[in-house]
Every structure is written in structure tokens, then in C-alpha cells.
């Protein structure tokens, strides 16, 4: 099986550790993973801000870069949802605008083979115990697109509960949005910040020292809020926890 890492532009630019963690984790599990250098951005920010037409070339490029692989794995619930939920919708809209089936046909191949990381682990590889070791108290925030668009369900919890040494604490109000929301974070910064502070407060109430999620965009917002509020907690992407072992612990 030829597996491609769709890292996302945010992770590529700002969170390379998450990318390295996915590579280490999947390599450890026997997956031969490739990083196609032609990848850039799935177009989610454009689409969700109202620039659907500007997102179309990015979607076409995505399909062009990733189309040849058997599986496409991404450590981002929202970018995964962009491909799985919104690429088909972009094709439908183009059709409704009288532009034919071209876009829908171009995007169709990548839709069913795009997996968010925890889906790929649990559904495709069939593992929940990935042999990880992470001796910390952790609380998990299920990000909205992973939760509601992709329906990740209890997959992330199954994976975290199997991690040796990890003490998982339930996050109060877990299903409430953290307030990031892409351009929402700056267009409605007051409401976004208030939501972020409430999420950080809820996370703090668990006594955990790590706030884990499967999307670094949300963690960027929450981590920035935590650091501004000088909380003792730190944000860590689930890939980095799952990649951590007794031999090579996460530093």
C-alpha cells in the first residue's frame, strides 16, 4: 500500500514535530510513508471564508499530487474534513453553476482514500495499542470537524487509553468548540478569545498537564491562550504522544 502523508500547510510551516511524529509512528507500525513534495494547502481557509472559487485550483492540485496513492493520511481533523466532506460539495456546486462534471471528476478519487490519522490507525491498520509510552496526565479535546464532520468518535480515546503510563482525564464540556474557527479567530476575536479561555479553564480543571487534540490549528489558538494566561498546561498533538516510546520518549 502506497501511503502519502498530507501534513497540511500549517503543520509543515509551524509544527514540523507533528509531521516527524506521524512519520516515526507509521514507520514503526510498518507503513511505508511518503511525503509528496508538491503538496501545499487543501484550500480550507479559502473555502470557509467565502472564496470557494479561489479554493478550486488548490483542490485540483491536491488531487493531482495525491491521486496516485492508495491512502492519504493527515494529522488534522479539519483538513481531512475539507477533502472528505467539502471537496464533493465543491464539485456539486460547480455542476450547479453549469460548469460541468470536470471538478467533481477531478476531486472524486482522493475523497474516499483520505483518512485522519486516528481513523487510519484504528480503521485501516486495525490497531489501538501502538506501543507508545507517555507518562503524563492528559486531557483530550475532540476538535469540531474531527468530532462532527468526520465522526472520529472514540478512536482517539481508544488510542490514548492504550498508551503506557498515560493518565487520561475527562475534559468537561469536551464537545464545545474551542473558538478557533479559522478566520473566525480574527474576524470575531472577542468571542473567539472568550471561547478559548473557557476551554483552557475547563482543561485546567482536570489537573492534567497536557491538553491533547488531533488538530494543531485548534492547539495553536489554545496554546497561545494558555501561554498568555501563564497556565502550567501545554498543548501536544496526539501524533506526538502516540509516537513517543520508552526508547525514544517525546522530549
Amino acid at each position, binding site marked *: 500500500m502506497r501511503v502519502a502523508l498530507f501534513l497540511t500547510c500549517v503543520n509543515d510551516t509551524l509544527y514540523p514535530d507533528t*509531521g516527524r511524529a506521524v512519520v516515526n509512528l507509521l514507520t514503526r507500525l510498518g507503513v511505508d510513508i511518503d511525503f509528496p513534495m508538491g503538496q501545499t494547502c487543501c484550500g480550507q481557509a479559502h473555502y*470557509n*471564508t467565502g472564496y470557494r472559487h479561489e479554493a478550486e485550483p488548490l483542490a485540483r492540485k491536491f488531487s493531482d499530487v495525491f491521486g496516485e496513492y492508495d491512502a492519504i493520511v493527515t494529522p488534522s481533523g479539519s483538513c481531512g474534513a475539507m477533502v472528505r466532506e467539502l471537496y464533493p460539495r465543491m464539485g456539486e456546486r460547480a455542476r450547479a453553476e453549469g460548469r460541468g462534471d470536470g471538478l467533481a471528476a477531478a476531486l472524486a478519487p482522493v475523497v474516499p482514500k483520505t483518512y485522519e490519522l486516528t481513523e487510519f490507525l484504528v480503521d485501516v491498520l486495525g490497531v489501538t495499542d501502538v506501543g507508545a509510552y507517555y507518562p503524563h496526565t492528559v486531557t483530550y479535546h475532540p476538535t469540531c470537524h474531527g468530532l462532527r464532520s468526520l465522526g472520529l468518535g472514540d478512536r482517539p480515546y481508544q488510542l490514548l487509553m492504550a498508551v503506557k503510563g498515560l493518565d487520561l482525564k475527562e475534559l468537561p464540556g469536551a464537545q464545545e*468548540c474551542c473558538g478557533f474557527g479559522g478566520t473566525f479567530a480574527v474576524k470575531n476575536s472577542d468571542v473567539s478569545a472568550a471561547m478559548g479561555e473557557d476551554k483552557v479553564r475547563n482543561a485546567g480543571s482536570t489537573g492534567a498537564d497536557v491538553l491533547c487534540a488531533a488538530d494543531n490549528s485548534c492547539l495553536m489558538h489554545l496554546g*497561545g491562550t494558555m501561554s498568555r494566561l501563564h497556565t502550567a498546561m501545554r498543548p501536544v498533538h496526539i501524533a506526538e504522544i502516540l509516537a513517543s516510546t520508552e526508547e525514544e520518549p517525546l522530549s
Partner: protein
Amino acid sequence: MSGTFVGMPAFPKAAHEAVGNTTLRANLRHATHTIRDKRAKAVAELDDWALLREAGKQIKDHTLRHLDTYLVQLEETVTAAGGTVHWAADADEANRIVTHLVKETGECEVVKVKSMATQEIGLNEALEEAGIAAYETDLAELIVQLGHDRPSHILVPAIHRNRGEIRDIFTKEMGEWGRPAPEGLTDTPAELAEAARLHLREKFLRAKVGISGANFMVAETGTLVVVESEGNGRMCLTLPETLISVVGIEKIIPTWRDLEVFLQTLPRSSTAERMNPYTSMWTGTTDTDGPRAFHLVLIDNGRTDTLADEVGRQALRCIRCSACLNVCPVYERAGGHAYGSVYPGPIGAILSPQLRGTASEIDASLPYASSLCGACYEVCPVAIDIPEVLVHLRERVVQGGPATRQGNRVVLKPAKGHAAERAAMRAAGWAFVHPGALRAGQRMASRTRRFHPRTLPGPGRAWSATRDLPQVPAEPFRDWWQRTHGKKESGK
């Protein structure tokens, strides 16, 4: 607080004030979380909830697709049952019709059942101009009216008020409108309810004209349905001699049997009740009982324009349950007034810019009043994909494009104030289809990272006022990959 939404500032500005109001935040948090949790329990009791939701969606979609047929059928059945049907293209026409009908009775006061449609058209204000006093009789609407306030929730219009505030409003204002509040009124729910009961009873017994909306109109029988919790609505619907119902054209359902679905989903979604307490149904007039004259004013007011939009038309399925408001994290923090409309919350954010257009500052800002978290879609009992419509309307705001206004196909211009964003999106789009440009930008960011400030000036302050910026790494992932895996086949 004034009693009108006209000239409201854009959502972020109005929300800024609400977010800083700790009393309001506490009131809203308590109220929305309580009802949110109760709704979840009430819905979880039904094994066939998903099927009911799908049925509700399909009934509404079918009706909207054949709206012309069902409206004509409704006119026939209502007329046959002794009612009179009036058609109003917009708010002004509806207000003129209702004012004329009230004046014909010779009365100068009316009692009102809680109604979103009459608030949407500003009926109370229109009646007041014509010298007719309109008394709201729903408890929460009474609080809003006595407080010279605006509603902030579809189902619980005074959700932003706590008991102490309500006691103060009753004590100060009831005497101006009729029977004063009892001496020494406290803020216990029973005393507040009793004060309202005494004040309103006087109005019910005197009124000759009642005005209502309707939750449903059954085309096959001409029956109107009002779903309420207090019984005050039933007083207004049965005691006066003349009843005038003002209803949006999308409130129609084809058959009596269709009620089976909505009378299960609406109460559980709105008040978390298994069965609605007061469900009033009437068909025209009856010789021996109830109003002697019944008028139905059907309003369009932007609904046909909304129906013409393939993506946006699903908003017309709405049964006004408010579940989306109660679950919305943005509504919880910004409050209902920030939405500048009688329809606040997620449904308001997609309804107002469609019914009113996107020309005003507030209406153009509403599609952005969401983090697109999707909680609203999840709870919607008629499966309105609110995030989908929000994004669709964002596109209308930033790009303009085809739309229908007053029945005419028009091409809208992009809204003002998005030029810089549009340029940035285009530039980013260009960089993203040219990986070399992206890589150059990433490397530049990495090399200059020591000089990056912790906070940003200008528009970036919106981020950095409350959040630290992430530290740019020494190298982007792609450089690491090429260094360590470069020899390997790397695809395109």
C-alpha cells in the same frame, strides 16, 4: 436599549460589548446550558429520532418544492371554513392590512400571542403609529415589552434577564400599561408569575381583537396550529371576537398527519418536553364558540427570494425551536441582541441575510458570526446544514454573484471592506499552487524567526491581543523531509 434593531452595528462590535458584560454572560451560560442538557436527554429517549429528523426535513422540502400548490389549497380550505385570507408581499403591506383590519373593528387595543412573524414585520410599532395598543401576553414577551427592550432569543425572548431584573421591570412598568405589580413583589418565580397573571387577565377579558402567528398551517384542512407553554396564547386565540393570524408562507404543511412528526420534534427540541403543554388548533370560525371573524395574513417578506437560492432555501425548513441557539457557543457569549434581528443565533445568521439581503453592515457580518463548529446542524430537528449556508452566504458577501431580490434575478456586488482580504486570499492561493513560492516563504519565516514579535500590529492584533503567536521552527517539515528522506522516491 431601544426597541428596534434598525441601524445595528456589525456583529463583532455588538458582540464585543456583550462578551464584556459579566451578568449577561452568566445569565446566558446558565440558561443555555440548562436547556441544552435537558434537550439532549429528551431527544435521547426516542429511538427513532434520526428518522423523525429525516421525515421533518423531507416533509418541509416537499412542501417548499410545491409551495404554490399548497398555498392555493390553504386559501381554499381556510375560506371554506369561514376565514378570510390576505396576501402580503412585504412587511409594509402586512402591517397596512392588519392595521386596517383592526381599525374596521373600531377597537384601539389588541392582545397578542407570541409570534416571530409579527416581530419580523414590526407590527407593534406600526399599530402604535396608528393609535392601536398591542399587548404582548407571552410572559417573556411581556418582560421585553415592559422593559422597552428587544427580544434576544426565539423561544425565551427575555433569556438575557435574571429574576431580579424582571422584578424591577414589573414593579416600575406594569402600572403604566394596566394593573400595577403587587406591593412588595419579590423575585420568586411564583410571585413573578402571579403578578403577570393578574396584569394579563385584565387584558384577556377586555380585548375584542387577538393577533397571533402560527407554528403550522395545514393545507388540506385549513387548520392553524399554535404551540405554546403558558396557555396565554389560548386565551388570545379563543376570547376575542376577531382573530388575525400573521404567518410566513413557509409555515405550511400538506396534511394533518404531518403534524405527527413536528409535534414530537418541536417540543423536545425547544423546551425539552415530551409533549407540548398548550397546542391550540382552529379551522376558520365556529358558530357557537371562539372568534366570530378570522383573518389569515400570509407574508412573503423575502421568503420567495430565499426559496430561489438552491443552497440557502433549506433555512425555510426552520420550525423556530431554538435548539441551535441553545447549543451555539457564539450565541452563548455574544447574546441575542448582537445579531441585530428578531432571529438571533445560528438560524438568524442564515435567515436575516437572506430575508433582508446583505447590504447593511450587520447583515453582511452575520455569516461570519460562527466558528463553523457544526453543533447547530447536529441538533437541528429538520437538518438545516447551517454551516453550509453560512459559508454560502460568506461567498455572497465577499464575491457577490447571482441572487434574487423582490422576485428579480440580480447580480450582487461584493460587500465593502473585504478588498484587502480578497487580495490576501488570492496571493495565498497563488503561493499554494506554486510550492516553490510557499517554500521560499517558509524559509524566510524560519530564518527571521529570532526577530518575530510576540504580538502583532494592525489587524493581527485581533489574534495577539489575547493569544501568543506560535514560534516558527528552525526549518519547515519539507526541508527536514528532503534532508532525511530526499533520496527516496518522493512523488510529485
